[in-house]
């Protein structure tokens, strides 16, 4: 079933001026081959750290991968030597980022940049590489491919640049694409085009996509299954449909705009609110301070992922679910 891609017991810490902060604490995350898996997380949730840790491009220090495994096709990516992971980057797992302007080198034409990547990873002659580059540009549905090859990044628009980045990422046959906020800086009409492109390419090339964004609606329409990330922990996971129909965790509900009457009041911040965020410890639920539904136990133990219903893939990390009997009836936390 799924031993294609698996994250187990991953704990990543960061050295900050205020001590060591835990940034990622994920017990289990599996990807099935060929699916689009979405991760919803706001800034500070650790989603970019997670994405970068897969390809081992975190700078450490200040990041410290304390423990855990990231299994890809049977190999633990965290244990590979630099040379071995180099072979995986680009050829098996590829990544695209949020800002197309800074990912492309302004002094080379986009054609050259694609060709450079191709020739670095495959043994092709210059002519063959150029043909491949042309094919990739057509694949990402850029019009007038021949002329585009010779354009510099600043001659292209934001959406066109992002397509080039996708072309580069997929040029060497990667089968897993990590997309970290690929449409963040793009206009909405262009964003729609990029999302559709990623979807089409996924079907055409039969790749697996890990789609990370902070806009929950975006992630839902693109992904089959979704995990919600909060302060480095997965607090809810399931298919888009399940979570949309029945979001359980108070944070997820907040993201979807389902705001309880209590939350409709304007929060007047107190001194306590302004103090620095707590270093996430295992003795408290990460969402404790924000949660309006918390109970005594939430302060004492960090909840673990529990199944919401038997026989489906919807899991939530909340004590109020653990408390209840898990049965075939819908689990509501009395909203």
């Amino acid at each position, binding site marked *: 079933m799924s031993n294609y891609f698996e994250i187990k017991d991953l704990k990543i810490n960061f050295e900050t001026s205020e001590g060591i902060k835990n940034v990622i604490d994920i017990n289990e995350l599996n990807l099935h081959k060929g699916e689009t898996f979405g991760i919803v997380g706001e800034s500070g949730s650790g989603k970019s750290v997670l994405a970068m840790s897969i390809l081992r491009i975190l700078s450490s220090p200040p990041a410290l991968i304390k423990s855990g495994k990231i299994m890809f096709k049977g190999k633990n990516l965290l244990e590979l030597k630099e040379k071995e992971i180099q072979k995986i980057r680009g050829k098996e797992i590829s990544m695209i980022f949020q800002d197309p302007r800074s990912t492309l080198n302004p002094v080379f034409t986009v054609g050259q940049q694609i060709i450079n990547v191709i020739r670095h990873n495959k043994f092709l002659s210059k002519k063959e590489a150029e043909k491949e580059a042309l094919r990739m540009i057509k694949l990402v549905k850029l019009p007038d491919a021949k002329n585009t090859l010779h354009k510099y990044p600043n001659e292209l*628009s934001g*959406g066109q640049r992002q397509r080039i980045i996708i072309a580069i990422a997929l040029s060497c046959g990667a089968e897993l694409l990590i997309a970290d906020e690929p449409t963040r800086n793009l*206009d909405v009409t262009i964003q729609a085009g990029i999302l559709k492109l990623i979807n089409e390419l996924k079907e055409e090339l039969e790749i697996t996509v890990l789609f990370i964004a902070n806009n929950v609606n*975006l992630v839902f329409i693109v992904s089959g299954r979704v995990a919600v990330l909060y302060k480095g922990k997965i607090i809810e996971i399931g298919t888009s449909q399940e979570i949309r129909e029945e979001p359980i965790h108070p944070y997820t509900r*907040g993201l979807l*705009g389902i705001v309880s009457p209590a939350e409709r009041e*304007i*929060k007047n911040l107190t001194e306590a609110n*302004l103090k620095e965020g707590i270093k996430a410890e295992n003795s408290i639920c990460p969402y404790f301070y924000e949660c309006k539904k918390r109970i005594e136990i939430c302060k004492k133990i960090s909840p673990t992922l529990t199944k919401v219903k038997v026989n489906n893939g919807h899991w939530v990390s909340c004590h109020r679910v653990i408390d209840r009997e898990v049965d075939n009836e819908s689990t509501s936390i009395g909203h």
Partner: protein
Amino acid sequence: MNQPALVIKNLKKYFPVYSGFPPRVKNWIKAVDGVTLNIKKGETLGIVGESGCGKSTLVNTILRLEEPTSGEVALEGQDIFRLNKKEVAKLRKEIQIVFQDPFWSLNPRWLIKDIVGEPLRVHFNLSSGEILSKVEKLLGMVGIPKIALYKYPHEFSGGERQRIAIARALALEPNFVILDEPTSSIDVFSQNQILKLLKKLKEEFNLTYILISHDLSVVKSMADKIAIMYLGKVVEYGPAKKVFESPAHPYTNALFKAIPDANTKDINSIIALEGEVPSAINIPSGCRFHTRCPVAREICHKEEPPVIKLSEEHEAVCFLLKKGERGESWL
């Protein structure tokens, strides 16, 4: 009687492009190319548009940070470009702005008390003690505790910084506040808070808002009227409810359909427009949207479309509309 408090008449702002030696003006960037809007006191006008539509330039011009190439802007009857120094100072007290980026809109090297107190120091001759009490009061209005006075911006989260920016904007007790993407750089939860706060302040002080946002849920929740901008012109304008229910212009339609919301089923429900936004130097002939319009006709290439009044206050700029009725369904 609700007289228009802010009148923008056929405003144009072109930026010259120099080339050659000696440098000569070869071309113009037509950032704002004839915008006419009337805003009534107490209203919230939402301006929606993508990058390159001219909304930032429009805002800069209304604030008098840029001189217009032609056209006029009248605040409560007075042409803001024909003011003497004293009157310009008064203008600053009338109309203020909250920026999009809560990080960089506050000077990172200044203490909060200085940031919020700056407008007071520039315009009034108050003692530091008086300024301090006023600042405390302002922060209180936006729900920020006293202890923030001696802190730096980087010690706050995005939502908190935005509140501070709002406090600063209100220091001079303006009647008009321009909100430039006030919630796009902050997390979802703080967004709600900020919107509620803005609504409350509007009620309390009878403010008029110009709200710029690409987030339709924000515009939906706050705006009375909305104007859709494309490449320097307003292509549709009307009461928010009406425009959302039945968008008339093809671009408005495409814009609304491109944004996923809680009801979007899947990826096939969102619409992507072909092509890219043309450069503001080379504005397409005829209707400037014709290069990407899914229903463009012959005439759209050749002539600029007229303003069609669809109802009392709802109008759009498109050939395919007839007076009083919507054209065919677009997409």
